[in-house]
């Protein structure tokens, strides 16, 4: 301050300073700091303008800034441009020419070192629009030979070092109306060049109220943007620094953001001085482009003459990846809390201002979506004029309004009506007239000579919007579309990371324009075009890695053991460019990324054997790398043996069975890890079985799945060296109490031959007969149902028990249990239902009348024991038994039967049923002929 104070009275701003001091005295009753603030404002402007290195203050998305920049660059022809942008983003700028703006520069880190792991991934985006001063500076520097562009702001790493990660991002993100486009930046932290906005809400509210405008963008447009569009460079500079200084001085003192901003200023000036010292550039041929806020900085390090040092902390070891991602006007508005449509309005204003002022903007050669302009003609750099006060004039005059001209407004009025009609509104020419008239009236009421786009928007809403919105878009949205609409940028092939390029290359055989934002339908017929199979493989990997809507199969699936014949896909890769670019940060090909992700998933501390098996399956499906699959499989074995719970047993069983089937069908021998998995699993589950049976936390389904594993894979396990007695012992050691688990145990015992079926049936009958236990019967039955998977031979018994349960259980027990049975069966339909239904089909009659005559096979036969003897027997056997009657009689007596032998004569007489006998009698010739053939 002292330096400024010396020539305060005599400097170019002496008069203004005096005037403001006078004003401060007038408001002597007001806040105490007022005189300081008012005088300080002038000091800040004075200081910034007298700085040896020319400071160009900018504001984001401001056409006036861009215009002034274009003019100044042509005039001054600087050799070095220092730009307020993360210094590590510099290599990306060269790729900008390959993109259609707006795009965002992105720094991305997924593997953190020095930041808490749970914050990953870290992402910074800096959107670049065409109507911005920074783009002008970049285009000038890259297109003009011998001009150096130096980014001087802190690196992406420092962005996070300086922003405590536990605090939310400060950018006032708004929930976008158009979620799809509003979310183009993902959850990245946005950085902008020239963020200029009041630091606290009260000031902004005050400005809006007094400015009689609705939102910040409108205020800015009316009070700064428009008056400055036509202003000369000095006025522009002084006004911008003044505004920056005002917002700076009216900030709460304990503002954490201010501290960060000051650190950034220290950083920038340190870097600038370092560069000047090393390059020996002439400061008078340099330009420092920074936000107006930073131009009014009061840090000690400000200015080339300052010698104050600043220790720049080293970056963390985090590895940052860089790329360009597509951005859009609405995404920028959403990210930085601007009013919807304001960036589009800025773009329109820029185009208009270019036409009117005939300023030739700078554009990168080959920039897509822009018109070509002639390269800047080298003109002799203009000498810098001494600083003169332009502020007094600017502040004392009302802004000269610069709104729409009549023809433009008329055009818009007609267009909005047409657009509204297309969107279902009943609007007509009368509305166009009304919109035009109302816009004029609104502008008059708001003190503008000509209506602004915002007035037009209000007028259109007033005249066209009625009580309901007929279509998908309301008039406000239609106006936004009309006023330039949302522009969505695109990163061209050349600027994409290798992974994305690889994807586009490999999908080329499909013959689709994948960079378009529309959804593309791909039809793959492998019979006629077998060379499309690699495309299909890639699409499946992309399906696994990209968000759901990016790559969507309409027809076709990929499962183990299936071979595709035809597939059809909906591809929206162009719309999901950001995700593809971000994948590119993880690897060079999608396969590599998938491999990394699978490897990461199996080494995650929360990984289980089931997740590892899933990874194995995915690796088989998508990667087809035997080495990698085996590696994942080995990890699955490791995980299984270290697991202490059996929660995942059903999943493990399902997956391992599928994998075994796959290997048996495709490979001559099982891979080593599969054998290990089965033997380890056998031993592991045998060990855990007794505990699982008694542990209350382990469900019946889990135990059933363990038994399923043990029983169904037992033969394989034994062939690989396991011991059957281990399972027998485990079963014998199990003493469950829960009825369902008891039933499971019985089933297991029956499977192992430790319990005969008759015993099992008797026990169940006892349960049904015992009034004390009948209530628990459904639980036993549930256990048996669960056991079906492990012991399919039990299915006749389960059908029998179910039948008995329906027949004999009292309604009070049966009915509450039924829903649970149904839901269990529904949930696990794949495993149990086929067995159960097959058995039921065998047991129950197929037609309704047959049901009446049906006797269940398990009911004791009503026929006398004698009929048993009529059972058809092999005559040779019968003859043998008849000749040696003694052992047979002894055996029969031992078994408790009466050892009486039938009369052979009776047997022949009773052998033919009466109906057959009468038939033979009626047609003797047939029988005789048959006998003649049969008798040799």
């Amino acid at each position, binding site marked *: 301050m002292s330096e400024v104070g010396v020539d305060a009275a005599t400097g170019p701003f002496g008069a203004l300073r005096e005037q403001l001091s006078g004003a401060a005295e007038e408001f002597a009753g007001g806040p105490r700091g007022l005189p300081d603030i008012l005088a300080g404002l002038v000091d800040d402007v004075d200081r910034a303008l007298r700085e040896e290195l020319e400071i160009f203050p900018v504001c984001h998305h401001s056409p006036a800034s861009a215009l002034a920049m274009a003019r100044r660059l042509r005039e001054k022809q600087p050799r070095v441009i220092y730009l307020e942008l993360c210094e590590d983003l510099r290599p990306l700028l060269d790729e900008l020419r390959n993109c259609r703006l707006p795009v965002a520069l992105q720094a991305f880190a997924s593997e953190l070192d020095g930041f808490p792991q749970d914050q990953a991934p870290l992402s910074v985006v800096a959107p670049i629009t065409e109507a911005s001063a920074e783009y002008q500076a970049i285009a000038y520097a890259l297109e003009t030979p011998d001009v150096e562009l130096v980014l001087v702001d802190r690196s992406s790493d420092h962005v996070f070092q300086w922003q405590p990660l536990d605090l939310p991002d400060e950018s006032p993100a708004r929930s976008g109306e158009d979620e799809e486009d509003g979310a183009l930046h993902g959850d990245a932290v946005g950085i902008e060049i020239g963020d200029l906005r009041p630091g606290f809400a009260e000031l902004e509210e005050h400005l809006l*109220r*007094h400015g*009689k405008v*609705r939102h910040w963008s409108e205020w800015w447009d009316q009070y700064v943007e428009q008056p400055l569009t036509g202003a000369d460079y000095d006025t522009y500079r002084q006004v911008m620094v003044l505004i920056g200084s005002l917002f700076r001085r009216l900030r709460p003192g304990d503002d954490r953001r201010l501290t960060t901003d000051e650190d950034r200023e220290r950083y920038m000036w340190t870097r600038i001085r370092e560069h000047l010292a090393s390059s020996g550039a002439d400061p008078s041929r340099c330009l420092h482009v920074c936000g107006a806020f930073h131009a009014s900085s009061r840090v000690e390090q400000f200015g080339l003459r300052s010698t104050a040092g600043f220790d720049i902390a080293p970056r963390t070891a985090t590895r940052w990846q860089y790329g360009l991602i597509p951005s859009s006007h609405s995404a920028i508005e959403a990210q930085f809390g601007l009013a919807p449509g304001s960036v589009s309005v800025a773009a329109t204003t820029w185009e208009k201002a270019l036409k009117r002022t005939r300023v030739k903007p700078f554009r990168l050669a080959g920039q897509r979506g822009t018109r070509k302009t002639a390269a800047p003609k080298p003109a002799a750099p203009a000498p810098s004029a001494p600083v003169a006060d332009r502020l007094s004039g600017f502040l004392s005059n009302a802004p000269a309004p610069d709104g729409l001209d009549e023809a433009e407004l008329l055009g818009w009025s007609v267009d909005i009506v047409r657009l509204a009609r297309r969107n279902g509104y*009943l609007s*007509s020419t*009368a*509305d166009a007239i*009304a919109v035009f*008239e*109302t816009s004029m*009236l*609104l502008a*008059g*009421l*708001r*003190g503008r000579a000509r209506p602004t786009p915002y007035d037009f928007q*209000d*007028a259109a*809403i*007033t*005249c066209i*919007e*009625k*009580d309901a919105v007929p279509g998908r878009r309301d008039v406000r949205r239609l106006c936004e579309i009309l006023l330039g609409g949302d522009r969505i940028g695109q990163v061209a092939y050349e600027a994409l990371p290798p992974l994305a390029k690889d994807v586009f290359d490999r999908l080329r055989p499909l013959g689709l324009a994948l960079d378009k934002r529309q959804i593309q339908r791909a039809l793959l017929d492998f019979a006629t075009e077998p060379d499309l199979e690699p495309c299909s493989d890639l699409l499946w990997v992309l399906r696994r890695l990209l968000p759901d809507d990016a790559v969507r199969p309409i027809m076709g699936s990929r499962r183990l053991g299936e071979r595709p014949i035809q597939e059809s896909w909906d591809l929206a890769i162009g719309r999901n460019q950001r995700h593809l670019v971000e994948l590119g940060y993880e690897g060079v090909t999608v396969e590599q990324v998938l491999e990394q992700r699978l490897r990461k998933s199996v080494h995650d501390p929360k990984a289980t054997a089931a997740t590892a098996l899933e990874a194995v399956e995915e690796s088989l499906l998508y990667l087809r790398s035997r080495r990698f699959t085996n590696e994942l499989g080995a990890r699955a074995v490791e995980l299984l043996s270290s697991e202490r719970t059996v929660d995942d047993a059903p999943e493990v069983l399902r997956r391992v069975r599928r994998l075994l089937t796959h290997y048996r069908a495709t490979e001559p021998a099982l891979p080593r890890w599969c054998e290990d998995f089965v033997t380890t699993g056998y031993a592991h589950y045998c060990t855990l079985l007794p505990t699982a049976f008694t542990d209350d936390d382990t469900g019946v389904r889990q135990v059933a799945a363990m038994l399923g594993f043990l029983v169904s894979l037992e033969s394989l396990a034994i062939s690989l060296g396991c011991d059957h007695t281990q399972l027998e012992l485990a079963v014998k050691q199990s003493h469950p109490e829960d009825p369902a688990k008891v039933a499971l145990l019985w089933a297991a015992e029956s499977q192992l031959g430790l319990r005969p079926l008759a015993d099992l049936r008797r026990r169940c009958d006892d349960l049904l007969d015992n009034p004390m236990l009948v209530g628990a019967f459904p639980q036993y039955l549930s256990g048996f149902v669960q056991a079906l998977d492990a012991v399919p031979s039990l299915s006749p018994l389960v059908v029998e028990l179910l039948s008995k349960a329906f027949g004999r259980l009292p309604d009070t027990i049966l009915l509450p249990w039924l829903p649970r049975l149904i839901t269990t069966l529904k949930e696990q339909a794949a495993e149990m239902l086929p067995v159960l239904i097959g058995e039921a089909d065998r047991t129950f009659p197929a037609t309704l009348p047959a049901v009446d005559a049906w006797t269940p096979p398990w009911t004791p036969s009503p026929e006398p024991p004698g009929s048993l003897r009529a059972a058809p027997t092999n005559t040779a056997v019968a003859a043998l038994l008849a000749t040696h009657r003694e052992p047979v009689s002894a055996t029969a007596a031992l078994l408790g039967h009466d050892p009486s032998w039938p009369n052979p004569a009776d047997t022949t007489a009773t052998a033919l049923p009466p109906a057959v006998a009468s038939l033979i009698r009626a047609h003797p010739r047939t029988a005789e002929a048959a006998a003649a053939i049969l008798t040799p």
Partner: protein
Amino acid sequence: MSDELLRAPAEAKYAEELDYLESVDDGPKPFAWRLSPRMVRLFVLGSERSDGLDREIGQKWFGDRSFVERAIVTLASDRGLLLIGDPGTGKSWLAELLSAAISRDSTLVVQGTAGTTEDHIKYSWNVSMVIAKGQSRESLIPSPIMTAMERGVIGRFEELTRSTSDVQDALISILSEKYVSIPELDDDNIVFAKPGFSIIATANSRDRGVNDLSSALKRRFNFVRIPVVTNKKSEAEIVRFRTAELMRRHSIELDVPPTLLDILLQSFADLRAASTSATSDDEKLESALSTAEQIGVLEDAILHSQFFGDRALKAETLASSLVGSLARRSPEDLAVLNKFWHGVVEPRGRKDEGGPWEGFLEGGREAIAKLS
């Protein structure tokens, strides 16, 4: 005292302000407007220091500034103005203020009901006079709308959608041709509207389905939708402003503690949030929970305290007044309130022992118990 009115129209109540504004107004005035559009806005929304007036003009309507601006320019244009919104959002009050500022007469009002006929919009006859003298201009009784046309001022139509569609359609010719013909008369049988005539109609968006406007009529109105005020700060201002006015009208001098006002605003905000998230009509209160409703609750509590209480507003009284005003349907509304009291007010009451929330809790509980 005989000329004192229970409720003076806006032009009488703010006559002094309007006179002053008219005297300093040098802006261009459309038609025969008494004030320029900027002064109308200033009258409705109040003055700022930057307006450079010698005296302060108070804010009379609280809400988004652009609504007022859009309403004013509509009146200056060829179309009628339809203010649409939930009950109690201040539509009629805005209409009254606008007509008072523009024409110094806000009393030319037609109230739309199921019984409104075309006669109420156009004209009717003084039957005895017709019998005595025959049909003539003297025996004709002009409607408020017709009077407004003749005088070139603003006519108002309250609750437009409550009147039947054929009656509404009588407005179509008035709004487009700007005249009413009187076929019963042989000469002097057309009443032309003078410059400055326009119509401000209000419609309740909750009753939209009752008698929907024809598209021909919709086309002749500009719609300005007034939303329910959800900004707590401006809502507090509205409630304070209106309550002060009511107390002045009743000559009550009673202090409304700010904490109680907070409780009221908070409770309404909570109930509104609950209403929005409710899935069926039974789970939400029948009331629209508008700002006017809050004012009603507060007024009721104030009157109760003034005449039956000890002349100080208590949390208990406020609670019982709130329950009394909002419990309209016997099981449903009471159930919602009961849930609100147990789920939301009770924890607050327990935390705020001895404070106003506790009193509010007690008062509400009692009132709910009495009603159930």
